């Protein structure tokens, strides 16, 4: 059984009372994620991938379609306080902007405290402290130099690591990672990616990895979904997609990405 199953998901935004405008952001999207699987959802901005993520996280209501998590319908089952808490423990997220992920008014401890409370501990208790420190060490951070600081005192990479530490505390079944590394420096990016891999390895967490970067998707995923103008246009393993793209859009995408080890000129020469 798939951990998460998305069936015929649609999202239409309506704007205005007098002059209604409709934006069909997500069109008939269906896919599934197995336990322990890393699935990438690839598309350019405006392709509907973030909307899909928000719907899965329960931050947005779909116009139609259903989402099954552990076989339970998201819209129907997770409706009361207890089940919502359950869902929050089991499905969590890391977002793109490490700066916007922290409320500037609070020390960064807050995001960890929130997780601690969610798993039923008092953030002030020694056990909680222990857990937090362990989680921070797990993401390669020194608890002493991190705790009590305000967001603007840390770098983007550190902030994203703390976000992963938060997931570490929660041990969710599924992490929706929406462009988690696109806003951090290239030299530190690898570290965060490795943390996701570690999370999957240690906790068998499934990850829905949302990105515009084909290279990243190719590197990290078990399965890649290509999204274009709200629709899922192609699905396959990274190697399948890279070597044998079927949809025009995928082809164009792969052709256009700058590569490190081959030069376009050379590639074009080979084709000719």
């Amino acid at each position, binding site marked *: 059984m798939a951990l998460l199953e998305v069936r015929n998901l649609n999202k239409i935004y309506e704007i205005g009372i007098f002059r209604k405008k409709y934006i069909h952001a997500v069109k008939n999207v269906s896919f599934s994620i197995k336990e322990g699987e890393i699935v990438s959802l690839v598309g350019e901005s405006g392709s509907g991938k973030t909307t899909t993520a928000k719907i899965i996280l329960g931050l947005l209501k779909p116009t139609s379609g259903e989402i099954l998590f552990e076989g339970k319908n998201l819209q129907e089952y997770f409706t009361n306080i207890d089940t919502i808490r359950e869902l929050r423990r089991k499905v969590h997220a890391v977002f793109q902007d490490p700066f916007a992920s922290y409320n500037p008014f609070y020390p960064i401890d807050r995001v960890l405290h929130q997780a601690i409370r969610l798993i039923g501990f008092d953030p002030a208790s020694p056990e909680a402290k222990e857990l937090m420190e362990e989680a921070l060490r797990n993401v390669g951070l020194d608890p002493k130099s991190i705790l009590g600081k305000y967001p603007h005192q840390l770098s983007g990479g550190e902030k994203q690591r703390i976000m992963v530490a938060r997931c570490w505390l929660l041990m969710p079944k599924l992490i929706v990672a929406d462009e988690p590394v696109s806003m951090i420096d290239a030299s530190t990016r690898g570290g965060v990616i490795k943390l996701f891999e570690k999370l999957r390895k240690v906790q068998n967490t499934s990850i829905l990895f949302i990105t515009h970067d084909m290279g990243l*998707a*190719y590197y990290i995923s078990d399965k890649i979904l290509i999204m274009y103008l709200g629709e899922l246009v192609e699905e396959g393993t990274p190697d399948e997609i890279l070597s044998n793209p079927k949809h025009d859009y995928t082809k164009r995408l792969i052709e256009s*990405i*700058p590569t*490190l*080890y081959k030069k376009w000129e050379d590639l074009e020469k080979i084709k000719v």
Partner: protein
Amino acid sequence: MGETILELRDTKAYYIIEKNFVRAVDGVSLEIKDEIIGIVGESGSGKSTLSNVMLMSIKRPLTFMGGSVKLYTNGNELELTNINREELQKKIWGRETSIIPQSAMNALMPTKRIRSYILDVMKSHFEEIDEKEIIEKAINRFEEIGISGEFINRYPFELSGGMKQRAVIAVATLLNPRLLIADEPTSALDVATQKMVLKTIKELKDKKIVKSIVFITHDIATVRQIADKMVVMYAGKIIEEGTTDEMVSEPLHPYTKGLLFSVVTPEPEVKRRGITYIPGTPPDLINPPPGCRFHPRCPERMEICDKEEPLLKNINQRRVACFLYEKR
């Protein structure tokens, strides 16, 4: 490799913010020849500031702290640091040097038709102009670059992103400048358009519209596709310089290595190679670490590293600033 177009010698430019010096460009020497040169660095490495230094476009809080910037124009040698901003604007910028700005999307005056903007640019440089001739030339340039000459009659907001970017390129190169600086010109575009624009930039050189291009980016893969030569910056300094091919196949500086191996592209080589990262965070440019600025993050750190500053030394055709190679 051809004539020298621009020469920087030990240039320093700091941002002065609340009495603190942010050493964004700290002793950079560089020769730009008849080539496409890619400057690579992470955010905060000083690469964009360097582009301003190349043009001597210094505006508070950025302050030029020393060094020399020489521009060679058909036999003349101009020391840009001795020319005031007004003169630069009048005689150098747009004529000898030009730029494609970071966010080219909003680079064109939004409430003017491109045609009228072009005329303004021309009027700024020449006392008398023949409007018809200029428009004709401009239309030609547009078409050379691969967009319809009719777009000249439009407002910028009437063009799509890729078109707008190319219109900017066309306007920037109207006077066939010798040096073109492109500062992350593709970062806001989708991948397909990115490729198109990159090709356009490369063609500028191929069609001899400009002599040399400085391409500034954080993305090594892009540089790889376009540049002949690559310069890597870290914390306000150049730490390595060489031809693109060599740099990619055999990086010398530990930072270059780290950067290169943290790049993921959809290539089987990447999967084989794996992904690495550089621990720690880029240094604070107000109080940079002593010695080699990379030493706190360097996996091959030696004793000397936090005491002395490694100089940029020539090694074969390349230059690198690292004690690893000094000892050799």
